[in-house]
């Protein structure tokens, strides 16, 4: 199984390695100035050298992302459950939920800075806003699509609405919830960084802005790499948790792949 996995991702890794190699070669052979486009090796050295400063900024951004994500998850759960249980709430909120996805949340960052200052609050809020919609929309959809026959079965046993919700609807919605949570996880770090761009005392966004305004391009790249790694790590964390709590979801797809 493990060698199988390696074989599956090997081509992607080869392409990535080739791209990095070409990048390094081009910057060296064409003698591109470092402030314009540093090569990968320069970026790695910069990353290692700036690690002592990078670490606290990273910790701050991660904190904002995780708190905002948690708040979004909680709120999305409440809203999706309300929509599911009340017809009035569904008619009132569902259209808003769907159309609100077209609003560019990140454009609200300057407003949030005006209202809540430059502390941690506006960053958490922007992360929460960016993460709320994908989770709420997918969870509401998952609850709505729960198998009506399974719900009827629990009702035929004398089950209440609440039991139908907890024993059938909610577990049925876990796959949809997880896919919404994965999308949200990949938004969370960049949302925190954008919040920090508007104004902050600490965080990767601030560190990146400072580096770019002083043309320390290698450092900008190092920060981008950290943001990318954090986003992927959060995405994978949700995936791992999902596989643990809902192993039955993955059965069919894995069977299809082998």
């Amino acid at each position, binding site marked *: 199984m493990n060698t199988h996995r390696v074989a599956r991702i090997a081509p992607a890794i080869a392409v990535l390695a080739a791209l990095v190699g070409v990048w390094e070669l081009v910057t060296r052979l064409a003698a591109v100035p470092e402030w314009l486009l540093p090569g990968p090796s320069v970026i790695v050295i910069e990353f290692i050298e700036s690690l002592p400063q990078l670490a606290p900024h990273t910790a701050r951004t991660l904190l904002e992302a995780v708190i905002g994500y948690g708040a979004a998850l909680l709120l999305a759960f409440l809203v999706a459950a309300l929509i599911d249980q009340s017809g009035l709430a569904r008619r009132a909120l569902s259209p808003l939920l769907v159309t609100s996805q077209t609003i560019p949340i990140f454009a609200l960052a300057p407003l949030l800075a005006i209202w809540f200052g430059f502390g941690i609050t506006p960053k958490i809020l922007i992360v929460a806003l960016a993460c709320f919609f994908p989770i709420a929309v997918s969870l509401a959809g998952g609850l709505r699509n729960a*198998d009506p*026959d*399974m719900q*009827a*079965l*629990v*009702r*035929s*046993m*004398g*089950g209440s609405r609440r*039991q139908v919700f907890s*024993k*059938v609807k909610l*577990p049925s919605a*876990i796959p949809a919830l997880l896919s919404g949570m994965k999308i949200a996880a990949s938004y969370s770090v960049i949302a925190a960084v954008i919040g920090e761009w508007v104004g902050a005392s600490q965080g990767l966004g601030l560190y990146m802005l400072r580096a770019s305004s002083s043309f320390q391009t290698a450092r900008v790249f190092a920060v981008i790499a950290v943001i990318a790694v954090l986003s992927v790590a959060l995405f994978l964390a949700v995936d791992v948790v999902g596989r643990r709590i*809902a*192993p*039955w979801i993955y*059965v*069919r797809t894995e069977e299809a792949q082998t």
Partner: protein
Amino acid sequence: MPVAGPPVLRLVGVSKFYPASGGPSVQALRDVSLEVGRREFISLVGPSGCGKSTLLGLIAGLDDPSAGSIEIAAGPDGASGEVAFMPQRDLLLPWRSLLDNATLGAEVGGGDRAAARKRARLLLPSFGLEGFADALPHTLSGGMRQRAALLRTVLLDREILLLDEPFGALDALTRAALQEWLLEIWERLKAAVLFVTHDVEEALWLSDRVYVMTRRPGSIQLNLPVGLSRPRTRAVRGTPEFAALKQRLLDALLADTS
């Protein structure tokens, strides 16, 4: 074995209409009257779409009849008059182990869960499910899933089991094996069975009486006592009595289709 006394289930003049958008309402059932005696095995056969499943849904309390009455005798312990309903699909909840699926009824009804689990474990061998208590449904074969669904139905401890084409989706061999096994289980149970099928041989071989329904709107056109002695063996299917009964059922069904 059927036992004399008042019926455990009595339907009188049951009709069901469904509202149709932009037209007159559709009648699914017309004036259905039938009785199921204590510990009687009754089959309900009819052409597809004749409203058999609608009828079971009404008896299971998932919907209300438009006219007529459905009386279900209270259990010996004075428990509310309810039936145990096994829908067409096995509807095992994919996130629950076999044992947790089987004891869903006790959980929903607020019964003693530990006792229900103990009883379920004791019944596993006779349901051919020994050693699979902790298996998730997707790891089970179609026949095992169907037996697990029946175990869940039996554990509801009701006087009447409603089985909606339980073997409809299985291959012929598994189906034949499960029919024999169902007879064995039923002979030990103290419950009446109302068995929906469109397979006349299955209906005859299993039942004390067979009700034949007409096409939509479904009504009862024939109430045929089977009168073959029990316990029945497979050889019964080759006897002239069986052939004559089968002919009568087919005549009734085909006369209605032409």
